[in-house]
């Protein structure tokens, strides 16, 4: 049987498989590629006239020295970046089972729509009359987000998930201050939370108090309730949680925190399990960011850009940051100054320049219109079904820490099945690279030893899931049988073997320097 017939990145593959050393150092489709600084030879990749300017209007601030930027022609630049691209894994090339990251298919229609000149070439401060279509699009996206979440309001400007968390917490801070409760500075965060949660709470000036998890992977609701008090500003929960489980006592916890005078912030990173099925507003949530780059498929782009709009409850809505979008008889307009805001609005400030990630808004709305409410619901169901299929197919050879119950859109395993094998979670994950897969999320959540968190999303066919399951089964069986060759020092077949991260951190080299300078520095 073919172990993996779904392809892999254009090149990663053959390096080192018993191949002879080549004269060039390249191997077939695998090319080594120098840095642009090493390729530079004074060519130029654009054509502009050589205009002379006087110093008269430059206030005496004309640049004196050269910059040192490398120059190459267009064909050289194209080849450079194409060769670099072939060293990357990508969702277009293979299953990307990264738990909590939702690497789903990125429809190209969305890219095409974002590039319509009316959106892609629209200036953020163009006159309001010239931007009515853009404002209508934002309004339409707001309607989708509030309807899907069952929340009354949404702040659109946050630029990523963590930025959305910050926006939510600043709204909570403003609401507390407005009611004379500014002394509430403690935020309860489960130990299973994403690292951004405690980081954001500290960033927003709160102190963090950790809530333990129970042996079944759920947040200890009793411990959480016991920690509530008059100094608690909010709880920050992820639901479905980072163990891939829905919190069955979520409404109880919401009621308890509300009764204690605090707010309920929900990390929306896992919304892809429940979109179109469960409305967070029905669970008592006061604020939740939505990663448009996860649930609504705007591409991850190698680490951004993202977008993290935050839905808000009635109690937090007045504190949403500027700008605000309003509609009246003349059409849409943006409220960009506090003085122009409606009397009911008390914006806490501004998250960023302009109005948020419009390019991501277009893509997300294109995704939503394509899917429709039925398609969004189907996505969640298929994502949950696929994760459970993986869990059911692997739990006899790998170890699922939380028993036989169903999971949501992520299947979590720990490393107890590797006990005594000498193979670690890291080795196991790196061996997946040689099999043509990107590793799953490793060592997260922290509440499970050697965690492996697998999120297949709704984008995989059954055949693709079966191939993936087959590979993981065989790897698990080999590790358990003490056949560790595949794991020792894996990967062997990728463009690079394991990289020395200690060296990188101990002697940081963060930019290219011309050879003589580098030697002098060493």
């Amino acid at each position, binding site marked *: 049987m073919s172990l993996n017939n779904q392809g892999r990145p254009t090149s990663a593959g053959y390096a080192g498989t018993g191949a002879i050393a080549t004269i060039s150092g390249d191997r077939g489709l695998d090319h080594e590629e120098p840095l642009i600084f090493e390729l530079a030879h004074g060519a130029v990749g654009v054509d502009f006239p050589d205009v002379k*300017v006087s110093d008269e209007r430059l206030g005496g601030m004309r640049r004196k020295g050269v910059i040192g930027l490398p120059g190459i022609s267009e064909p050289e630049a194209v080849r*450079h970046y194409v060769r670099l691209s072939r060293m990357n894994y990508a969702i277009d090339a293979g299953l990307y089972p990264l738990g909590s990251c939702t690497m789903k298919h990125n429809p190209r229609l969305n890219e095409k729509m974002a590039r319509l000149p009316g959106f892609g070439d629209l200036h953020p401060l163009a006159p309001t009359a010239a931007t009515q279509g853009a404002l209508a699009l934002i309004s339409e996206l707001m309607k989708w987000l509030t309807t899907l979440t069952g929340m009354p309001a949404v702040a659109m400007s946050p630029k990523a998930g963590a930025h959305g968390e910050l926006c939510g917490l600043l709204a909570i801070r403003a609401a507390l201050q407005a009611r004379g409760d500014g002394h509430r500075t403690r935020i309860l965060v489960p130990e299973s939370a994403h690292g951004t949660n405690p980081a954001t709470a500290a960033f927003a000036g709160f102190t963090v108090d950790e809530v333990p998890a129970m042996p079944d992977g759920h947040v200890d609701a009793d411990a959480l309730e016991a920690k509530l008090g008059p100094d608690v500003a909010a709880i920050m929960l992820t639901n479905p949680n980072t163990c891939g489980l829905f919190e069955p006592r979520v409404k109880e916890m919401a009621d308890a925190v509300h009764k204690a005078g605090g707010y309920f912030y929900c990390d929306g990173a896992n919304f892809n399990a429940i979109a179109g099925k469960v409305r967070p507003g029905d669970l008592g949530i006061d604020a939740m960011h939505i990663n448009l780059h996860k649930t609504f498929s705007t591409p991850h782009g190698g680490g951004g850009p993202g977008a993290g709009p935050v839905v808000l409850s009635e109690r937090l809505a007045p504190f949403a940051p500027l700008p605000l979008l309003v509609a009246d008889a003349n059409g849409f307009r943006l409220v960009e100054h506090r003085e122009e805001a409606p009397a009911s609005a008390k914006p806490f400030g501004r998250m960023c320049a302009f109005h948020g990630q419009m390019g991501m808004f277009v893509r997300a709305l294109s995704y939503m*219109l394509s899917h429709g409410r039925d398609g969004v619901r189907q996505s969640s169901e298929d994502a949950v079904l696929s994760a459970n299929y993986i869990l059911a197919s692997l739990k006899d050879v790998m170890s699922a820490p939380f028993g036989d119950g169903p999971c949501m859109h992520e299947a979590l395993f720990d490393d107890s099945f590797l006990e005594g094998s000498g193979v670690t979670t890291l080795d196991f994950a790196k061996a997946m690279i040689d099999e043509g897969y990107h590793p799953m999320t490793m060592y997260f959540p922290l509440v499970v030893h050697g965690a492996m968190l697998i999120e297949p999303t709704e984008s995989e066919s059954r055949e693709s899931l079966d191939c993936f399951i087959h590979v993981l089964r065989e790897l698990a069986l080999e590790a358990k049988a003490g056949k560790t060759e595949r794991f020792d020092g894996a990967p062997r077949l990728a463009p690079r073997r394991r990289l020395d991260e200690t060296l990188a951190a101990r002697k940081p080299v963060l930019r290219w320097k011309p050879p003589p300078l580098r030697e002098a520095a060493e």
Partner: protein
Amino acid sequence: MRYHPLTAEDHRAMLAKIGTPDIDALFRDVPQGALAPLSAFDLPDTQGEMEVERALSRMAAKNIASGSAPSFCGAGAYKHHVPASVDHLIQRSEFLTSYTPYQPEIAQGTLQYLFEFQTQVALLTGMEVANASLYDGSTATAEAVLMAQRVTKRGKAILSGGLHPHYAETVETVAALFGEMKRAPVTAGSAEDLIALIDEDTACVVVQSPDVYGLIRNLRPIADAAHAKGALLIAVVTEIVSLGLLEPPGAQEADIVAAEGQSIGNGLNFGGPYVGLFATREKFLRQMPGRLTGETVDAEGRRGFVLTLSTREQHIRREKATSNICTNSGLCTLAFTIHMTLLGEEGLSRLARLNHAKAVALADRLTKLKDVELVTPAFFNEFTLRLPKPAAAVVDALALKDILAGVPASRLGGAEDLLIVAATETTTDDDMAALEAGLAEVLS
């Protein structure tokens, strides 16, 4: 629908393997009553590609794109020509649909271009180190102030009145939690006395050049005064092309540079996504926010790149991280670095000179109009005019004639009679003539 590979037969087979009767059995932990029926969502059902394209194209057609009209809007976002190869390359699957490069063995493409990007940004700003980008210029500025607060263990920040007001508000929103934010009053076209405001409690002074009115500032005297009091100078650049012609902040003793990189490689996009540039001195390296890519070797001794110094970051340090930032602007960073590679030293220099020459020509033309006065004596590709009428009304009137005349300062909280006007390499003589004629008519 077209994006879902699983068929009804797949559903049946998979449920059988799992051993549950139906999908909803998998949602058994959802509290009673919280599982919403489809009818609870008042939204349309699935649509084909053609219908979606039609609906969105209709919305797009209601906007005036910068390229479809004479356009002079700037104030933090600039219309530049982006070479066709840039957008083609960033849409390669392996760039567009890859994740953050946490698995370096299969992400060398991303890591190497980030390393190249960091080097380009450091060179351009005249600084020693740069990170792998932040969300945009405004959030980079806020992060710079927070970093200065950490470095100096002081709270107070002095914000120049020439700092883009959106940037100032972004800084105030997050950094005011940790100290006083003092905004200096400014008169458009002149530099305020920032030095007098610096005291022993000051963590940093934040100065933008060219400022929001387009005025080129001399940072060195402010940097010297800040340093004498133990404070840092944060230089903000919203038009990064200017560094092809102007003295970089690093040569003016800036400690941190926070900049908007949109002008290189990235479209206007109605305000985002953009790309925040962040550069500083090597001695502050471990206080930097955001991702950093570093050079290392693999197990066979080959050069390779990894994300490094991540002990500063949230996924390791949690509440002790230097910032909560997780996502950066990966793909916008790629667009920036490809465009910058195509430009190179010579191309960037020519581009910058062309921008300045266009702006000088435009300013000379418009100031010949009756009662129109140039208030920014030194500028790069953007300047401010004083008009005899409220600028917002003038801009609205010209928009009806399909001319995007610039940004009224009042839109940013400034004086009513000021118009901020930008010209770039994309500005043609016909564009200039159209604005000149339009202004003459509206002002008469």
